[in-house]
């Protein structure tokens, strides 16, 4: 598999809409705008699109998108589950499809009006029987509560503190302050603001939680051969992986031997195995940040440090530009936009093209991850 997929495909176009609360247009219209922008960026006509991939939570389906943008005959379409865990897998599925000849021009996208729509956890009518029966009656209602439970245990076991979580929030906010498209562009964050903000689910405060955003993003995947003829510099999919570890339970992963060793570990093993690179070779990372504790957990899972060392890794400006591993250089889900992690994919492409608003000098390799804490996925991109 590795020989077939490694560097066989490239992302050649990216597109996005504005990020805001209460955008006027529908999710369907936003999806089409992001996709058409991505195709225009690539210099590929919509009629050439024959592959699609998105999330199971995406509410605009391929039929609507394909007929709106004027796609041709579509021969591959795929939806990936588990919310933000599916972000990188959308590109991975397209890469596999293109590499095996199931499609020639693939589009991945996510469009969501989370900034003006309902919060999913408020829906009591579609309460899933499993595992909701074991958690929701006790008031463990929201993803923030479920991850807060793991965060408290992580802090207890490894001596992590709120200052470590603040380091994550601050790095993302600092990058957003450089990115005019970010929702938090003009909103600096201070340690005092962080430490005195309201709790959402103690030990997690307001700034440990991602934004609520309306917006859409898309990218275009073609073969490496085709990529050479596109308008923009290709960004190669060097390695891609999904991960559903043994005895994993989703976000309420309390029921196995080691709940703090999440899906990123299994995903990382597969990702590195099929790669020529190691964590030391990664110039910049876009790490899924629905909640700040996902960063130390992911740093450990993807091998940037040992187990229990993820919090300490954040010290001394390690996550800032010029630090050991600059992360989420567009601002991430915490400070640019929360669109189920798709903005992290596009930011990885911008870094490797050399045109990020917070450019890491000479960045040639970028790790992009999907949501830790649920069945997840990751990409290693290279220029």
């Amino acid at each position: 598999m590795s020989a077939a997929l490694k560097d066989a495909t490239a992302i050649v176009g990216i597109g996005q809409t504005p990020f805001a609360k209460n955008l006027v247009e529908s999710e369907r219209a936003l999806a089409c705008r992001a996709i058409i922008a991505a195709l225009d960026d690539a210099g590929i006509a919509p009629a050439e699109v024959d592959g699609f991939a998105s999330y199971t939570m995406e509410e605009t389906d391929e039929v609507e998108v394909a007929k709106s943008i004027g796609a041709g005959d579509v021969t591959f379409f795929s939806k990936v589950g588990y919310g933000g865990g599916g972000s990188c897998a959308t590109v991975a599925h397209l890469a596999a499809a293109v590499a095996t000849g199931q499609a020639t021009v693939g589009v991945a996208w996510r469009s969501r009006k989370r900034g003006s729509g309902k919060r999913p956890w408020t829906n009591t009518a579609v309460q899933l029987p499993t595992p909701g029966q074991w958690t929701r009656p006790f008031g463990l209602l929201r993803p923030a509560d479920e991850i807060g439970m793991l965060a408290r245990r992580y802090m207890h076991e490894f001596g992590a503190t709120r200052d470590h979580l603040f380091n994550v929030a601050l790095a993302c906010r600092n990058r957003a302050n450089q990115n005019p498209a970010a929702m938090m562009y003009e909103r600096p964050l201070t340690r005092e603001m962080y430490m005195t903000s309201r709790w959402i689910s103690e030990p997690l405060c307001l700034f440990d939680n991602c934004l609520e955003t309306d917006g859409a993003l898309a990218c275009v995947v073609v073969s490496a051969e085709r990529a050479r003829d596109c308008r923009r510099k290709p960004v190669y999919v060097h390695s891609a992986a999904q991960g559903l570890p043994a005895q994993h339970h989703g976000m309420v992963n309390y029921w196995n031997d080691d709940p703090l060793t999440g899906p990123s570990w299994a995903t990382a093993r597969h990702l590195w195995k099929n790669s020529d690179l190691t964590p030391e070779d990664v110039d910049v990372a876009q790490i899924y940040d629905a909640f700040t504790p996902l960063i130390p957990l992911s740093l450990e899972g993807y091998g940037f440090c040992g187990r229990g060392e993820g919090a300490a890794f954040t010290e001394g400006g390690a996550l800032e530009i010029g630090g050991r591993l600059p992360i989420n250089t567009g601002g991430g889900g915490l400070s640019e936009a929360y669109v189920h992690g798709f903005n992290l994919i596009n930011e990885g492409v911008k870094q490797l093209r050399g045109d990020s608003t917070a450019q890491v000098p000479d960045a040639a390799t970028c790790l992009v991850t999907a949501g830790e804490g649920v069945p997840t996925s990751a990409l290693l991109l290279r220029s």
Partner: protein
Amino acid sequence: MTALPTEPARTVESATATTGDGLLLPVPDDDGAPFWEYARRGELRVQACAACGVLRFPPRPCCPHCQSFDSEWRRMSGRGRIWSYVFPHPPLLPAYAEQAPYNAIVVELLDAPRIRLVGNLVTSADAPLDSVDPSRLRIGAGVKVAFHAMADGVTVPRWLLERP
């Protein structure tokens, strides 16, 4: 093997599975139904493989170790330790927001530390979700089970400090 309850477990078909106050009732699936039926009788039981004996939670159709579909429900002592906890603050569903900040805890059972149950630490079985002083919550604190009837025929395990 422990006989399964003869009385069929209560299943909630309604889309609004809440108490009169709006708290969410457990919506059992086929695998989980015996847990709730035993809870209604005041017993804390966990599914175990009838072939190899390994406990598993949440309940599921077959044993991940030996693939047997035969299971039994083993009674637990009801003693455990707090593994972690959170204090949810609004925005929450209205019935929970009224009691916020309250605690939600994960308890690891002394009989089987890998079996962990989400619950609430309360001062007595029927006390409010915010009845325990937050400063009393501590990872490792000993707790014991108590049973609270949320609604007619629906009982959930809750937890009391061993040393209140």
